[in-house]
């Protein structure tokens, strides 16, 4: 009795070993399978964290709110509302406008800085890079808050100007306005412009610049014909890295925007909070994503056309 069970378990083990070795053999034979297997945990997490949530988000966006629950009949009524009611379109347009201005301002302001470090700093480049990125180690929330202190009615700028006798009333347009949001975003995201710009400028072969000079280009022509086109990848990367996250930013408009500086992120949040209309919030998230994808595509096409023309 004992013997048979022993032999049984032994044969079971052998079978397991055989199937195990078959698996090993299969893995040894198929390089591709091993590659996919190595990547599997990551893909699993991304599947759980991205694909499934998005499918559910899509589904909920087709539902409607009913009291505290949902009416689960599928309908496009939320999308129709998002399209027809002016508030949604207006907030979306304002978000893209604010982010767009902030992105252009950040890239334009950081470009000379990155250029300076790439071309004019010869010793301690690393120290300059660290100096430029250290401020971003502080909390994003507190950096945004610091701008509230600077731009506020009793803030640095207003008290400074009134102490100097330049103004009698504090400048009201500074805080709680789109301007405040743009200034703060440009400051908060500067590191995301400096680093890609610096990397693309640093890569430029200096002998190309010498060649351009030898062939008679002045500094301005040299910049527009060599440096700027070659640093285009950095400009594109920086623009994407800043524009996309800032369109959905919540903190900065919530703290500094006031009623005129509210953005789509705040509207989405309200749907999941105070308004408690989850289906509408899901719809707005999806609309925002589609718009970003469309804008990104247009931006890529335009820059590619421009590069072709230059080249």
């Amino acid at each position, binding site marked *: 009795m004992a013997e048979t069970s022993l032999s049984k378990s032994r044969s079971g083990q052998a079978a397991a070993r055989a199937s195990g070795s078959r698996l090993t053999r299969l893995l040894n034979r198929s*390089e*591709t399978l091993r*590659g996919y297997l*190595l*990547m599997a945990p*990551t*893909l699993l*997490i*991304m599947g759980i*964290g*991205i694909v499934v*949530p998005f499918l*559910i*988000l899509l589904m909920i966006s087709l539902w409607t709110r009913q009291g505290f629950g949902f009416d689960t009949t599928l309908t496009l009524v939320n999308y129709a509302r998002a399209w027809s009611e002016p508030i949604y379109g207006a907030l979306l347009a304002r978000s893209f406008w604010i982010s767009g201005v902030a992105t252009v301002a950040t890239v334009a302001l950081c470009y*000379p*800085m990155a*250029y*300076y*470090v790439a*071309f*004019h700093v010869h010793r301690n480049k690393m*120290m300059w890079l*660290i*100096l430029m990125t*250290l*401020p971003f*180690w*502080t909390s*994003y*929330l*507190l950096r945004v808050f*610091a*701008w509230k202190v*600077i731009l*506020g009615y*009793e*803030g640095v700028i207003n*008290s400074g100007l009134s102490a100097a006798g330049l103004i009698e009333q504090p400048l009201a347009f500074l805080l709680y306005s789109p301007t405040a949001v743009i200034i703060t975003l440009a*400051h908060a995201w500067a590191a995301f412009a400096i680093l890609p710009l610096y990397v693309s400028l640093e890569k430029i072969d*200096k002998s190309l*610049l*010498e060649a351009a*000079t030898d062939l008679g280009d002045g500094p301005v022509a040299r910049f527009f014909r060599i440096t700027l086109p070659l640093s285009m990848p950095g400009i594109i990367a920086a623009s*994407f*890295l800043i524009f*996309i996250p800032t*369109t*959905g930013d*919540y*903190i900065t408009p919530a*703290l500094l925007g006031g009623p005129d500086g509210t953005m789509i*992120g705040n509207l989405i*949040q309200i749907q*999941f909070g105070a308004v408690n209309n*989850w289906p509408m919030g*899901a719809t707005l*998230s999806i609309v*925002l994503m589609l718009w*970003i994808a469309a804008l*990104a595509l247009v931006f890529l096409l335009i820059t590619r056309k421009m590069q072709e023309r230059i080249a």
Partner: protein
Amino acid sequence: MSTGSYIKRPNRALQVYAVLFLVVLYVPVLFIPLFSFNDAVHVRFPLQGFTMRWYSELWSRQALWNSLWNSVRVGLVVAVISTILGVLTARSITRYRLKGKGALVGFIMMPLVIPGIIFGVALLVLLSRMGVPLSLWTVGLGHLIICLPFAVATLLPRFEGFDPSIEEASADLGENGWWTFWRVTFPMALPGIVASLLLSFTISFDEFIMAFFLTGTDPTLPMYIWGQLRFPKEFPSVLAMASLILFVSFVLVFIAQWVGRMGLESQEKEGLQS
């Protein structure tokens, strides 16, 4: 001046711009330590006088320390998991010929081109549908998704320049796959691994919008700061804590820089001797 050195000619205007740029970059950040020594609950000018009160009171702010501890725990777990997954992914991308590699990499990098608020909302909807209670674990899952692309992006270049013959040599010398990994692959990828750990931790530590949607009853540090911004009761303590964190990270960055330079110099010396 020779014609060849025009690129090296110092540009006065750019130098002035660079200094101004750094000033504008630093002034808002330096308000945080400045007001942490200010003797008033409300943060506004004029300054009320110097005090160390907020720092001495810091020890009794249990809620603040709890939220800091929560953020550190989430950050550490997220950093370790995203780096491990990043190593596996970077390795499989560079080592094996995979079909649809481009699409897979694009998929992993997706969180870089979608605003965080959408991920937060989508995960919130999923978790509430599944009846999963919100906790630090759900925050961690959210952070993991946004940290993974950064981990993979930092690790990929480390693995791309990897010479497979070194691993083959190790196998020829009788090491099995596991020991080859620990004794050959891991040390060569170490700088990338350290960078990925640091980057993931930093992102998770400061992340707000995911935590905003996914936090249960235990707030992370940014969530706690958010609460204090709206209803300031202990706000100067937050400033004191933030100043301490700022100071510690400054010191860490400079130590890392200094150690790195020492390593370089000693390598150069060894190079000269040999």
